[in-house]
Structure formats: C-alpha cells, structure tokens
C-alpha cells in the first residue's frame, strides 16, 4: 500500500478480439473455428498520482487511456501488474472504494432519460447513502458552480448535449468523490461550455482537494488544468512530467512570428519557414539559436512586430507520437 491516491505498477490489459476477413466464406468458416487476436491495450505502465494532484492523460484514439481509467475505476479486471486507488484494489469494487471515486465519461448517459435530473439525483442520494443535509448542500453547490439552474427540472432528453453533460457531472459528484476520473468531459461541446466545465473542474478540485485524472483531445483543457501530463501511446507511457518540460524535452525548437515593414523576402537563411501570410512569416528555429536569430532579424530586417513562442502543445504531442511511430 502506498501514500499515493493512485498507484499503478506495470499495469497491463489484454483483450482477445475476434478477427476475420470480410465476406460470406470467412463468416461461415468462423462458425466452426473463430480466430482471435490478442490486443495489448495497456502494456506495462507505471505511475503514482499524489492526493490532490491533477494529471492530464494524453494519447491518440486507441492509446489505452480509457482502458486505464476503466481499470482504475474498477470496471475492468487487470491482466497483470498492480493498481491501487485510495488504498483499494479497484477490481474488488468494494463499496467504500466506489463511494469515494467517480468516472465521468463525455459520451455516457447515466441519468434517467425521461425524468428531470432532480429525480436521478435523488436516486443517487439513496445509492450512495448520502445524508440528506449533505446531499442538498452538495446538490445546490454543484448546480450553482455549473450554472445549471432550472435545467435540472426538465426531462433529461430535452437538454442539449452541453446541458446534459453539466447535469451528468452534477449527478456524478453528489457523493463528493475524492478521486475523479474524467474521460473526455468536454467532447462535442461548444467553446463556451468547454470553458465552463474547465473552470468548474478547477474550482471543484480547489474546494475539495480532489485528485483528478483527465483525458481530453482538447489541449486547451490540459493546458488550463494540468501541470503534469502522462502521454500514452500503444499502451505504453512515452512521457510523464511537467507540461512545460514536455515541450522542452520533445520539441527542441521555437517559433518566431515576424511581420516586416517592406514585405517578406526570402527568410529561409534565418530558419525553416513554416507559414507565410502576406507580410507575416512564421519561422521554426532550434531552441539554442533563438536569441541569435532574433537579434539577426532585428538588425538586418525592418521588423514591425516579432513574437517568440513555444510550439503549440498539439504540435508537441504530435511530435511525441511521430517519434514513437518511427521507433
């Protein structure tokens, strides 16, 4: 048993997936003999997450993110290795464990479809054995934080995707979980709603000291919420550390966006031209060369504006995956 809220050591999950060629002949053959293929969804990952920490869990589709969250929340049995959450082995699905965690998935509906969310909340109160006073206080606090208001009185089926996601989150947090697994909580939502949910997650964590593990394809979610990221690909961890360090480690370059007075001539001698839009040129230069190239540009060109930036996090992540694929 460790002090970490989440402890994972050499965790593995394999699935036997039926496999056959297309067509009637192959379908008939599979009646007699079915071929299966072993897929390693998670392939020996290890990490610890301290209580109160918020960690971004990043990776492309099929990387093993959701499978990991499902193992940590007790939905899936592990194929090997260790997983511990709040001192519990998740697959045992002990009541005390399930009362202290929540898994929120962006594409899942847990509320009663035809009834107002308030009725589902009441059901959750009885399932989680929440004392009524605590339930009412939590419910009202969550409704206020997420600005849900009267939406909880409408049948769930009449809510928009974003509205439904917000009431789903209220329902998932009524029991005040200590560990929160958020799997693509902002998927399909508009920018305003994404921002509202990001702000909420930060506020919830601050108020309750919750440990949060977040997966998202929107880097804005990760940048706004997570100092630490774990990058996973093909079921293996490629990076685990500060978000800023990820950029330093993987992307040994910076971008310089420069606007010139006399139109943009050939700037390829300064660095790799990655974008050109009229007088505005974006250059990619090695990190160590940034200061020297900037000084040269200012001295040799008629510069109207100049910005030096770290590469966008999307590009950095893409680079991590690209490096992995090359290996």
């Amino acid at each position: 048993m460790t002090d970490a809220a989440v402890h994972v050591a050499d965790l593995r999950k394999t699935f036997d997936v039926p496999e056959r060629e297309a067509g009637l002949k192959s379908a008939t053959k599979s009646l007699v003999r079915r071929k299966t293929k072993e897929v390693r969804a998670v392939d020996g990952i290890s990490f610890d997450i301290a209580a109160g920490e918020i960690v971004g869990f990043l990776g492309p589709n099929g990387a093993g993110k959701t499978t990991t969250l499902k193992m940590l929340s007790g939905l899936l049995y592990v194929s090997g290795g260790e997983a511990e959450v709040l001192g519990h082995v998740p697959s045992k699905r002990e009541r005390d464990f399930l009362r202290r965690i929540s898994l929120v998935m962006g594409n899942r509906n847990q509320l009663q479809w035809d009834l107002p969310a308030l009725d589902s909340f009441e059901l959750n109160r009885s399932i989680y054995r929440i004392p009524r006073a605590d339930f009412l206080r939590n419910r009202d606090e969550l409704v206020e934080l997420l600005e849900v208001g009267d939406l909880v009185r409408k049948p769930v089926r009449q809510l928009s995707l974003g509205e439904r996601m917000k009431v789903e989150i209220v329902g998932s947090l009524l029991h005040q979980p200590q560990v929160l697994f958020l799997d693509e909580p902002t998927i399909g939502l508009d920018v305003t709603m994404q921002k509202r949910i990001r702000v909420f997650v930060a506020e919830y964590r601050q108020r309750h000291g919750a440990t949060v593990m977040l997966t998202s394809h929107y880097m804005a979610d990760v940048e706004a919420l997570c100092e630490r990221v774990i990058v996973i690909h093909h079921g293996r961890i490629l990076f685990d550390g500060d978000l800023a360090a990820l950029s330093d480690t993987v992307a040994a370059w910076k971008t310089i966006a420069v606007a010139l007075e006399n139109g943009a001539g050939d700037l390829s001698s300064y660095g790799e031209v990655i974008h050109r839009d009229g007088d505005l040129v974006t250059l990619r230069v090695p990190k160590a060369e940034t200061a020297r190239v900037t000084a040269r540009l200012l001295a040799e060109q008629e510069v109207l504006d100049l910005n030096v930036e770290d590469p966008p996090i999307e590009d950095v992540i893409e680079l991590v995956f690209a490096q992995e694929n090359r290996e």
Partner: protein
Amino acid sequence: MRTLPLAQEGRLRSLADFYLTTIRTAIQQQFQYRAATYMYLIGMVAEPVIYLVVWSTIADQSGGTVGGLTAGEFAAYYIVWTLVRTMNIVFTPYGWEERIREGELSGQLLRPLHPIHYDLAWFAGGKVPWVLFYLPIAVVLTLVFNPTFNVRPLEIAVFAVAVWGAYLIRTFYQSALGLVTFWTTRVGALFQLYITLELLLSGRLVPLTLMPYWVQTAAWFLPFRWTFYFPIQTLVDDLSNKQLLGGLAMQALWTLIGIGLFSLVWRYAIRRYTAVGN
C-alpha cells in the same frame, strides 16, 4: 479532503430507502409512458383472453368440462393468470444482453450497490401502474366470462406473498441466463429455450393438470411451476393450509438456489466485462 459520512440509518434501512426511491422513480417513469403502458397491457391481456376463449369453447363443447375444469374455472384461472403475469415481469436476458454488449453496465458497476438491486426495485415499481390498469380489465373479464372463485382470507394472503416469490424466482434465473452474454455476446436463442420450457412447465400455456403426467412430474423438480401455477392455484384451487405454506417454502427454496446460481455466474462473468463503448 473529507469523505462524506454515510447516512446514519443502518444498512438495511438504507437499502429500504434505495428500494423506495427507485420504486417511486420507476412509477414516475411509467406514467411518462402512458400510451406505451396501455398498449403493453393490451398485449398482455390478449394472450390469456385467447387461451380463455379457446378453453371455454372446448369446455362447452365437451359437456361443460375439460380435464375436470369447468368454463368458470378456466375463466378464474386466466383472470388470475393475467395478474400473476403482470406481477412476474422481470428484467429479461435481452435487457442484460443489451446492457452488456453496449457497455451500459458500466454506469451501474460504478455504483456501490449490486445492479440486481436496481432491477428488482425498478421492476417492482413498474408493477404499480400496471396493476392499477389491470383492475378495470379484470372487472370486464369477470363480467364477460363468469369465473368461479371460492377464496379464503389465508389464500389471499398467500397469493400476495407468492406473486413476489414468483417475481424473485424469475428475476434470478433470467438474470443468470442474461449473464451468459459475457461469454456468447448474444443470448436470444437460450432465452427462447427458457421461455419454451416455461410455457410448458409453469402453467403459463395451460393449467398443469391438463398436461401429460410426465410433464406434471417434471414440473415438480423445476422452478417454473412456482412462477405461474402455484400463485394462480392459491386463488383458484382449494389448497390446504399445508399445501399453501409448503408452496411458499418451495418458492423460498428456488429463490435461494436462484440467488446462489446468479452469484456464482456473476463472480466469473464480471471478470470478462470489456465495457465496450462506454
């Protein structure tokens, strides 16, 4: 961070609170689907009415009785049948199949309460509106078919318990069957086999006394007769007190076996859950 304290009441009282809350929610849900409930009941009533018309006609043409049962006794049998059928509706293996295949089980596995409690409570709640809708139908059937009833208070009391016994037995056996989905992905064929056996061995198709002797004998060793025939018998036949209480004891026994079977299958099945899609 602090953990929320558990509600002060004990485990059993909390479970009762959960059942009552779920039953209330299920009733509300049923009322949302009024039209569907009416249509469902019409479908439910059609089956016994067809049996009733067929057997009443045969009885009339056979000098008043078939296998010792009069037209009035047939009428009583199938009117009570309708109520028993309404009461013993459970979450089917098809429901389990969809829940497992589509990954909907995930939401329920995250809760600190076994999903079977939810099914038991939800379908118990659903019965309240169904029984309310059944009452006027029973009155009409009584006026049309003149059933023969001779009921004692103890028989009514035993019936009130027996319909819930039937509900428990069907829940656990059909749920255990539904868990087969974890191995086969589809469970429809097995469920059809189950329903065929139930039709023949439970008294659902015809009163068991009309079945061949070997069928009646086989029915004694299987759970099916306790889900239809016995509850119906409590109101329709003149069972002795010993037979009435013995029947309840048999229901309790089959329920315990069902719980054991379901628990055993669950223990192995849940390890195979892949939570696809959700």
